[in-house]
Each structure stands twice: as C-alpha cells, then as structure tokens.
C-alpha cells in the first residue's frame, strides 16, 4: 500500500514538473552546501591533525604577542630577540631551542624572480630539530652550513617556483640563485611536506639572512623549542613563560605547545564550520519553506481530487500519507542531487588545493555523510509536508467535492 501511495505521489510530482523542479532546487542548494561544509570541514581537521602529528607532541613555539590575539603580535611590530632565546635555552626541561627569523624576500633565478618566505636558522640546531622531531627529509643534497652562501629550498619552489606556462626552468641541485645581489648555491631540496607555506619557502643561515636585510638588531620571529624527553611540555611552557616574563618585564609573548596549537587551529576551524553550516542550514530552512509553499498550493489545487479520493474510499490518513510522501520525495530528490553537487564541489576544492600545494587537505566523504545527506533531506521534506498534509487530510469530502 505504501508503494502505491509512493507511485501516486511520484505521479503528482511529475505532473507539475516546473514547480517541482524549482522546489527541488531549493533543497539542492541547501543540501549541497551542508555536504560541502561537512566534507571540507572534516578534511581540514584531518589535515591539521596530520600536520600536528608530524610536529611532535613535545614541540613548543614562542611567538611575540599575546596568545589571545596572536595576529596583533605578527602585524604589530612586536618581536623577540636573541636574549630571549638564551633565556629559553637556560630554562629547565628545554632540550633544543633556536631562533627563527622569517622574511619575505625576492629570489632571482635565471631571468625570473619570485617573492619568497626566507627562513633564517642556525644550521646545527635546526637540522637536528627539523629532521629528527618534525619529520622533514631532504629529497636531494644536504642541509646548509652557518655563515655560508648556501640555501636549502622547498620541493614546490624548486619544481614550480620559477616556471610559468612551461617557460622558465626547474631549480636543480648546485645551481645558483641570487638574493639581494648575492649568489647562493642550492645545496638541498626538501621533500614535499604537503603544505604550501613550507614547500614554497627557502632556508638559509640566520646570520646570512641578517646580513641581507642589514639588520643590526638581534630580531627573531619566533623560537622553536623541543622539550627534553620525559618532561611534560605543558610544565616546560609554564617555566619558559615565567622566565621570559621576568627577563622581558612584560607578558607580550605566547608559549604554545603543539597540543595548544592544535586546539587553536581546531577552534578556528570550528568557528568557520559553525558559521558556514549556519548559512547552509538557513538555506535548507528556506528550501523547506519552499516545499511547504508548493505543498499548500498543491492541496488547494487538488482539493477536488482529494474530495474524489475520499468519495471512493480514501481515509484521512491515506490522503495525509500521500501528501506527506510527496513532500518527502521532493526532499529526497533534492537531497540526492544536492549530495552529488556537494561531493563534487568538495572534490574540486580538494583538487585545487592539491594543485596549490596543500596536499594534506582531502575532502572527507564516507557512507555516513551520504546517508546523513539523504536522510536529512527526506526528513526536512516530511517536516515541511506535515502541515499541508494535515490540511489535506482534514478536508470534508462534501466541501472538497464542491470546490471548483
């Protein structure tokens, strides 16, 4: 019997194609947004946790600026100094600590040039730290030496950085690039890390970078730290905080453990997700109202038909079920199409992200997401259909038959 009602409902939807498709479109937009958001949101979380797992649990970073407002530290001219590095190094429980200076500088290669993030690092500590605790590997060559004109570059910078429309060349080992008129030999290429920032960056010794920018100050962008084995990184962070506060005479810095960074990133993603999901849900509610509107119009239009069906033996609940099913099917069809579009959008975003070096981001699609999309759209259709269906089922046969 349910199958018969299903067929009756489908017949009536097909009979009013234009209106049905317009109504379905409303749900398509809502569901495709929801699916895209969930798929990419989960993908982003996955990418972050993958990055953090490479980062290592006993890693800490000191940034200038307050933790609650890190951006003001980056853009507000605050910075750390070599003295701070010494304070950190002398803190109990710190295994490795070294300064990192990051500047955007133009690198020239052949007849091309490119604005690049250049990291200035002390050779020995950074090599140990990055290779042993951050999972970095060299695809080719070796790490740079201190005070030498040597540079190590990211995988993508070497492959694509100076290529444009197949013109230009790949950078190979032992070729020379020019930075601020000074020649640097490429001694190493880092294997892909799957994130744009580091794959497109260059790495030279800290002293050389300071020479190039002509800075007499002992400016430092951030301090990378590894806690000693067996020590709680949170405790180390507390100690560093206390010592730095005493030496700097102000709390204008933040000490972040990898766990803490994960939380911050997670929170940012969560906020973005909630906002976008909120928008998607609004779209869905609008879609649901569209269904309701269509169903009410349908009830009015088919009043006589309802009267006839009642005359030939349809009970109130039969009529109600037919209309409810019609609304549910509209929702379900919209959901199926929306699901397909949403998954496609997520996949396209993933593809574009990979093209641009964000190889960690992958659209998250599994059977539960698909079932959720379909189920959710069906439920929305049914909820939107409840009131119209009730109105239809409660029509008096005599009044309905008389309706023209």
């Amino acid at each position, binding site marked *: 019997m349910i199958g018969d009602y299903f067929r*009756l409902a489908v017949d009536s939807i097909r009979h009013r194609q234009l209106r049905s498709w317009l109504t379905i479109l409303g749900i398509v937009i809502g569901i495709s947004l929801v699916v895209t958001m969930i798929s990419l949101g989960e993908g982003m979380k996955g990418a972050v946790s993958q990055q953090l797992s490479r980062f290592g649990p006993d890693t800490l970073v000191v940034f200038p600026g307050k933790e609650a407002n890190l951006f003001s530290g980056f853009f507000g001219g605050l910075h750390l100094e070599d003295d701070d590095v010494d304070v950190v190094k002398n803190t109990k429980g710190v295994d490795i600590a070294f300064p990192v200076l990051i500047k955007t500088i133009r690198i020239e290669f052949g007849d091309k040039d490119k604005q690049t993030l250049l990291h200035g690092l002390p050779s020995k500590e950074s090599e140990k730290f990055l290779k042993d605790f951050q999972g970095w590997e060299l695809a080719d060559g070796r790490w740079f030496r201190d005070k030498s004109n040597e540079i190590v570059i990211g995988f993508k910078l070497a492959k694509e950085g100076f290529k444009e429309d197949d013109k230009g060349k790949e950078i190979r080992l032992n070729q020379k690039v020019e930075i601020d008129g000074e020649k640097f030999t490429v001694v190493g290429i880092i294997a892909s890390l799957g994130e744009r920032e580091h794959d497109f960056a260059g790495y030279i010794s800290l002293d050389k970078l300071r020479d190039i920018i002509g800075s007499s100050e002992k400016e430092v962008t951030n301090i990378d730290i590894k806690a000693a084995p067996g020590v709680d990184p949170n405790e180390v962070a507390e100690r560093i905080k206390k010592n730095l506060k005493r030496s700097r005479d102000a709390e204008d810095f933040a000490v972040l453990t990898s766990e803490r960074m994960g939380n911050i990133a997670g929170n940012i993603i969560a906020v973005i997700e909630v906002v976008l999901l909120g928008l998607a849900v609004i779209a869905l509610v609008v879609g649901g109202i569209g269904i309701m509107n269509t169903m009410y119009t349908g009830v009015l239009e088919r009043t006589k038909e309802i009267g006839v069906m009642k005359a030939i033996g349809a009970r109130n609940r039969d009529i109600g079920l037919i209309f409810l099913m019609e609304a549910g099917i509209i929702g379900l069809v919209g959901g199926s199409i929306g699901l397909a579009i949403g998954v496609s959008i997520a996949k396209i975003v993933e593809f574009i992200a990979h093209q641009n070096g964000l190889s960690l981001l992958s659209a998250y699609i599994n059977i539960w997401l698909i079932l959720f999309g379909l189920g959710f759209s069906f439920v929305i259709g049914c909820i939107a259909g409840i009131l119209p269906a009730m109105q239809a089922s409660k029509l008096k046969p005599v009044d309905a038959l008389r309706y023209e």
Partner: protein
Amino acid sequence: MFIDSVCGMEIKNKKFHSSHDKRNYYFCSTKCKLKFEKESVRSREKVVIEFYNVWKVYELGNARITAVKGANLEISKGEFLSIQGPSGSGKSTFLHLIGCLDLPTKGSIFLDRKDISMLSESELAQIRGRKIGFVFQQFNLINTLNALENVMLPMIFQGKVIEERRKRAVELLDVVGLKDRMYHKPKELSGGQMQRVAIARALANDPDVILADEPTGNLDSSTGHSVMNVLVNLNKKFGKTIIVVTHDPYIAKYAKRKVNILDGQIAHDHQFMKRFIW
C-alpha cells in the same frame, strides 16, 4: 410532529399508524398505510438504504438552512431509482447523505441495516469505498493517472494486492467497452469514454449501490443515453442498485421508481401532485 414514511408528509395527528420491527410508523392516509403494510414485509427484507426521520441543517454564519426536513426513505436492493427536484430542493444534500459523504443533523441513516451516523470519518470512508460507487457529472477522474490506474484506485484504499486490482480493473474496462483504451489518460478520452471509465471505477470494489449525480449532465444526448444504457445493464445483469440524481426528465425515464424532492422533503406522486393542484 411525525413524518409519513411513505410519502414524507408532515403529520399532526396519529390517526393512521402501523408497527413493524418493534417500531411505530405514522401515515397521512389509509392509502399510504396500506402501501406500507403491503410492501414492508416483502421489501424490508432487502432494504439497502433506509432514511429514518433524517434532518440536515446547515449553519452559514448566522443563517440556518434546513436542507432536509425529516425525510423517510427506503431503497431496496436492485432498485433503479431516480431522484428529481428543482435546484435548491435539497437534492445534493440527499445525494451526500445517501453516499455517506455527510452525516445527518438528526435522525438515522441505515446502510445494510447499520446506522452510519455512529461511524467515524475513516469508517465512513471504508464503507463508501466498499458499498457505494460514485459517478459524477464532471467524471472526476484523476488526470495524472491513466484509465486502468483510475479504475484500480478505489481498490488501493481497500488494501487489495496489485495482481487482483489489475485483473479486476481490466475486466471492468472490458465490461464498459474500453479495454483498448486502458493506458489512455483522461485527457485523451472523449466525455462518454471518461464517464464509462468512471462507471468502471465505481464498480471496482463491487458495491451494492451505484450513486450517479447528473451522470449525463456534461454529455450530448446520444452519448448520454449510451451511458444510461450501461447503467441499465448493470441493474439488469448484475442486480446493482442504481440511484440517479437528475433534473432531466428524459434521463429519469430510465428509472423504475421516481423520488421527487421539494423543499427538503420527499414527495411521492400523490403528494407531489397535491401541492401543485393546491
């Protein structure tokens, strides 16, 4: 105040009365009383529909309209009955009451000896589906369904399985001569064909009573007569009780018994005449 159950006239005194089935009946004259007594034993055995002092009052805003005033009526199995009356006489209300589409304000309506005024809306719907077949002036087929599906529709609501529904619908379309038009939508059929599909649909659940409301109202006269012949056939061959509501005296001629309605009351021949003679 009482109502003559033969002619439907209002009676002020209880001069003529008779009892049947533990119930007292009052009459306007000996003629009606004798008619009742002669017919009652024989006809009551196979009464399908009985109206007992049925009143129907509509309230439209502040106005109260009494559409049926204490009607008494018995319809036996296998009768071919026409209900006639001028517009506004309460004809449609009668039709709705007979068809269990509406319930009386006062009084009882018995369908197969069962008082329908006690039934819930969904029980009424089931009874309509099983015992009464409707044929409407505007055919009222479902436009989205083809002829076969239209005929199968009443059986869906009785929970019959698809094979049974299909077999029966094909049979019925054969009976009304439209087997070759099974897969046509109503729009692709002529008026006469649509009405015959509607008759087939009315027969779907093999009801005792076919209730036709101006069945020829939207047809030209020759098509109208051929549709009426289908109904006559059903009456003769299958013994169906046919009730036709019409204002067309030519159509009413097909009926073996005529019921005239005036101002919400049933007027049998002698009463009806009397009103005009007065």
